[in-house]
């Protein structure tokens, strides 16, 4: 039985960035969320297939179609320091101090009331499907003891299956088993997250068995590792979709037809099978991953058709008059400035961008790629100094399609102005009736496909690789989670 | 007729950052040189001979004192006047190997003063140079060599030739022959004497070697610790 093996029941997981924030006043960047998800828990949780299930809240209800939400908290749950979990902790966790309240998705949260020790009431400014929002790992429930009397952060104290033990900056974070965990006590004695920034090093560390499990494996390593006998590769379609966002406010992509031409020129299926080694699902413009809620099954997707793309361009008046392979109109060449981020989160983006550049070159568009860090991107974005950006999963967590906010005109990332769209997105988010909501989201998807504020490329597949002696792992669809429920080690040397 | 008269010439050097130290390289020197004559300057090592020479040529600025050359006080000259002074007084150095730019052919080295002072046009230049090297008795084959391909005596002749192109009235020879072999030294010293007779040049002849100075000079000043201590 696994328990007997406890001497080696210490899991080592490699991640790419350190956890440099443990407190709710900031967003946990990079891979920090994998670690947070072991220490902290949320009121509402998702199971491995994105079904919404009780977390720290046992149940919830909304008496007024989404403007007020009442959560009944689980009894007999204790924080890592032994203090009981209660309504105060919820109020603390969603106070004005918290990131999610201050900057994030819960800005329309008016206030929280404690009804009794185990009941809290969230009052919103407008109707919202709040339980979905509360599944996000990045805004979990923390103990008020996380801070001292002056409000300075002391230690990460949550209710999760593992307790924070120690952290050595840029090296490792050690978590140990929470003996008093509310659910099934974890088999693992401890989980150590090792910080290894370089992807190749991460893979080699797994192969030398210096680490047991790696997250965010680069696509190109998958097929090789799938053939290795002593590693297991776990794959599952996630909630994330990579998309090519256009600057519709000015420049060439102001013209919807040109955006369409781009969509027809990109063969997402081929890109997926080559650049991404077949990992993921081609989106062909579908804005929502099939695993997402309200993802419309029947959509009028873009099938690869260069000829059509060429046709559209020439109809729009773009001709190659000087025979340099680049189309031009009124003496202006067809040029686009293409921004790509270099986050560890999306190492695949650079080769994808290059591939896109290649195909667009093919239809006569001169694409200039700029690989930048997020700060630099923000700057160019604000100044409107770009034509396309390659992005992944903004406002995406859990199955709920909050992502559509990204194209609303007031969103800093939108670069798209369409009052109709804005209205539709708002309405969809504020509608409590599931059927109506579904219809609204279906309409939104059709609209995105028709209007193309962005062309959706691939639905991302999550990859976790572990050595075969890691048993009992079940991969979750939602990305920031690392589900170690039921994991144990057997026969590790 | 007096060509150069130096009065109360002083040159102090200062060294040290924290505690300034004063080195009195030249400390009140009076010198007089007549037209067409040679003044010998002798003295132990480090007594200030070179410094006297360099200050007279205004290669270093004197701390105090006056230098009257050809009737003009030259201590305060600037700009154009200073440049013209270069045509009248010149210097020959001790070490022939470093007296010429190693990257300049002999021809260019001799031509250089003429170009700097814009004294000849391109078509005259060849002829002029040939005349000059004839005066100092140099083979014209050497003109297109680099300095390191010449011997010390030949180099010293080149130095003299280029100086002569300016027709100077006064030349300082700072141990001009002390690095040369006796045979060559004799050649150079004889050449200098010849030139003096022909062109009426005045010399300030600096040397360690009393015998040589006696042979060269009309008058001899002996220096010690920055001062003239004897005058023969």
């Amino acid at each position, binding site marked *: 039985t696994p328990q007997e093996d406890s001497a080696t029941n210490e899991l080592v997981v490699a991640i790419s960035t350190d956890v440099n924030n443990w407190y709710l006043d900031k967003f946990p960047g990079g891979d920090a969320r994998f670690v947070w998800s072991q220490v902290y828990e949320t009121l509402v949780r998702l199971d491995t297939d994105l079904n919404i299930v009780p977390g720290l809240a046992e149940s919830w209800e909304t008496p007024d179609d989404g403007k007020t939400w009442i959560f009944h908290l689980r009894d007999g749950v204790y924080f890592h320091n032994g203090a009981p979990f209660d309504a105060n902790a919820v109020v603390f966790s969603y106070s004005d101090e918290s990131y999610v309240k201050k900057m994030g998705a819960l800005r329309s949260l008016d206030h929280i009331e404690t009804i009794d020790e185990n009941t809290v009431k969230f009052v919103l400014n407008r109707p919202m499907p709040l339980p979905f929002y509360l599944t996000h790992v990045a805004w979990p429930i923390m103990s008020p003891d996380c801070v001292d009397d002056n409000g300075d952060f002391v230690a990460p104290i949550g209710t999760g299956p593992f307790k924070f033990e120690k952290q050595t900056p840029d090296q490792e974070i050690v978590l140990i088993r929470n003996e008093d965990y509310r659910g099934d006590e974890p088999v693992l004695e401890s989980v150590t997250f090792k910080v290894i920034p370089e992807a190749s090093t991460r893979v080699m560390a797994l192969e030398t068995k210096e680490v047991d499990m790696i997250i965010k494996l680069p696509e190109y390593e998958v097929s090789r590792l799938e053939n290795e006998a002593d590693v297991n590769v776990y794959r599952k379609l996630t909630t994330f979709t990579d998309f090519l966002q256009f600057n519709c406010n000015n420049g060439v992509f102001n013209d919807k037809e040109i955006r369409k031409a781009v969509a027809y020129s990109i063969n997402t299926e081929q890109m997926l099978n080559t650049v991404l080694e077949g990992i993921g699902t081609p989106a062909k413009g579908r804005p929502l991953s099939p695993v997402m809620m309200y993802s419309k099954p029947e959509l009028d997707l873009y099938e690869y058709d260069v000829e059509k793309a060429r046709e559209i361009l020439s109809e729009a008046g773009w001709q190659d008059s000087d025979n340099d392979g680049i189309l031009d109109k009124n003496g202006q060449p067809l040029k686009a400035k293409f921004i790509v981020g270099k986050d560890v989160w999306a190492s695949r983006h650079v080769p994808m961008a290059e591939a896109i550049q290649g195909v667009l070159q093919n239809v006569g568009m001169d694409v200039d790629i700029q690989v930048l860090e997020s700060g630099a991107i923000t700057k160019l974005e604000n100044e409107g100094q770009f034509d396309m950006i390659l992005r992944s999963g903004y406002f995406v967590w859990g199955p709920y399609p909050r992502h559509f906010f990204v194209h609303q005109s007031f969103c800093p990332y939108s670069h798209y102005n369409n009052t109709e769209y804005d209205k539709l997105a708002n309405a969809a988010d504020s509608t409590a009736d599931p059927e109506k909501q579904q219809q609204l989201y279906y309409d939104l998807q059709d609209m995105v496909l028709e209007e193309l504020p962005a062309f959706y490329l691939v639905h991302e597949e999550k990859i976790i690789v572990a050595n075969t002696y890691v048993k009992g792992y079940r991969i979750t669809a939602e990305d920031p989670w690392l589900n170690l429920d039921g994991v144990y080690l057997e026969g590790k040397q | 007729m007096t060509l150069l008269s130096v009065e109360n010439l002083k040159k102090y050097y200062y060294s040290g950052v924290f505690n300034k130290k004063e080195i009195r390289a030249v400390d009140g020197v009076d010198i007089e040189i007549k037209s067409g004559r040679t003044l010998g300057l002798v003295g132990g090592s480090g007594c200030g001979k070179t410094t006297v020479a360099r200050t007279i040529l205004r290669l270093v600025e004197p701390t105090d004192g006056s230098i009257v050359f050809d009737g003009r006080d030259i201590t305060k000259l600037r700009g154009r006047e200073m440049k013209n002074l270069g045509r009248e007084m010149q210097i020959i150095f001790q070490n022939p190997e470093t007296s010429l730019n190693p990257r300049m052919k002999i021809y260019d080295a001799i031509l250089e003063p003429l170009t700097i002072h814009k004294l000849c046009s391109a078509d005259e230049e060849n002829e002029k140079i040939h005349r000059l090297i004839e005066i100092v008795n140099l083979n014209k084959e050497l003109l297109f060599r680099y300095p390191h391909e010449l011997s010390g005596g030949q180099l010293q002749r080149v130095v003299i030739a280029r100086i002569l192109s300016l027709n100077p009235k006064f030349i300082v020879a700072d141990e001009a022959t002390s690095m040369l*072999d*006796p045979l060559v030294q*004799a050649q150079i010293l004889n050449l200098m004497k010849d030139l003096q007779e022909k062109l009426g040049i005045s010399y300030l002849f600096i040397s*360690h070697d009393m*015998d040589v100075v006696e042979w060269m000079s009309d008058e001899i000043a002996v220096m010690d610790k920055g001062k003239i201590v004897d005058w023969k």
Partner: protein
Amino acid sequence: MSLLKIQDLKVYFNARGKTVKANNGIDLEIRENEILGLIGETGCGKSILGRAIVGLLSDNVEIRGKIVYKNEDILDLSEDRLRKIRGKDIGIILQNPSAALNPVLSVGNQISEIYRYHENMGKKEARIRTAKMLEMVGIDPKRMHEYPHQFSGGMKQRVMIAMGLALNPGLLIADEPTKGLDPTTKDKIVDLICELVINRNMSLLLITHDLGVAEKMCDRVAVMYAGEIIEIATIENILSNPQHPYTQDLLNSRPKKGLKPTAGESPSLSSPPAGCKFHPRCRCVIGECPKTHPQMIETENGTSVRCFLYEDN
């Protein structure tokens, strides 16, 4: 009695494709207890000869001939044996003391290591001997812990002398020990060397181009020109009755004799003129001179000279 006998010594350098014949057939004998002067113009090969005697030339050089020191040919010796001879039997004072002293070792150390290495002396004993040596050359032994850069030129020269004499060698080679010194210091050094050499019954090969120094110190003088010895005679004979035209010119070029000039330049060692090497500058060229290379000829009073003018004598 001859202490060192050099026979037909040839030292050729291979420099950038050219052969520099720095010494080209030197025959020379140094007798016991004698001071032999070696004079000649810059670059004629004096220092090379001095170094060749001690086997201190670099590897890219071709040496032929014989250098016999006390029945041993130095050129045939093993490196080990040579090492024993150096310093112990033959000492050398190199030309430029500023460069020849190691800047990072104290002066005392540089002398005492000779004792420690050759005579296996203890530190203390070596230091006492060093102090004695320094005292002998007129340097306060207390300064033995100082470094070369703290010494003046004359003092460095003295240190070099102390080093050369440390083991009482039978033969000392002094390469221009007075170069670059002011007249007073020069006199002191000359006196010092004379005194030490005479007191210790050793021989000295004094390389110089200062005739004044040679006059003061030497018994005999060899005159070198372009890698050859062209005249050997007692110092008196050289001064009063020079035979070779070059020697005569050399003497006449002194200020005392009115600085009489000689035309021409010294020849290059890589392509010397044919025949007598001095003939292009010579006042008394005769028919043979440009064609045949003259041999050494004995003339009166034990003078040898390499000149056709004396052929018939």
